[in-house]
């Protein structure tokens, strides 16, 4: 399962933290929560993945959908501190070129 916490601000960017596992079981809830979280946000979004222990292709697909929506508003989405296993999946799928990935 996963937990999503929102509301932190960092250099005028909206920070969302995700914790746990995103797989075929948790993905529908993750999608709903994430879309709800960004619906009224008009600034860049940072998805803090420090505590994201697992994500699959379905989860990555959700992130791509969110990225498209955020870019439609003229903003960007940053993936912060992904673990090596998560980062590897971004690399394999080429999504490391679509997203800004930052380590802080």
């Amino acid at each position, binding site marked *: 399962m996963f937990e999503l916490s929102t509301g932190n601000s960092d250099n005028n960017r909206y920070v969302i933290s995700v914790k746990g596992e995103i*797989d075929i079981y948790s993905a529908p809830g993750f999608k709903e929560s994430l879309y709800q979280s960004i619906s009224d946000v008009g600034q860049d979004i940072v998805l803090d993945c420090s505590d994201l222990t697992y994500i*699959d292709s379905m989860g*990555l697909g959700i992130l791509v959908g969110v990225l498209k929506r955020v870019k439609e508003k003229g903003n960007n989405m940053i993936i912060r501190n992904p673990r090596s296993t998560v980062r590897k999946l971004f690399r*394999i*799928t080429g999504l490391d070129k679509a997203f800004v990935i930052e380590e802080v």
Partner: protein
Amino acid sequence: MKQTDTVSLCIPMKAEYVSIARLTASGITSRAGFDIDTIEDIKVALSEVLGKIIEKKPLTDRINIDFVCQSDGIRININIPDNIPDLFDNEDDKFALAIIRSLMDEMEMIKQEHIITMVKKLGKAV
């Protein structure tokens, strides 16, 4: 002659049991001598296949997985229900296929036998 040990797992065709398959894979691959990064890779690849099978809403209610531990690695055979012609036929499936092909040394769908077989060799981390 190689010595092989086979562990079989049968899970309900439900998304909530994919994590059980991941846990099982973790235990078996650890026992087989894989390092932690490779264990994660195998878990991800297995999870992708199971996820795609469940997504296709097959008529059968269970998935069978055989973990065949060999002296030089592991072979994972997953039964595909008869009514699924192709697991990776949609545009959305390309991420899953890319992930599986990258993380495993071999991946083959044997349609006549309704099996997906994946191989990971010991000592070949991605």
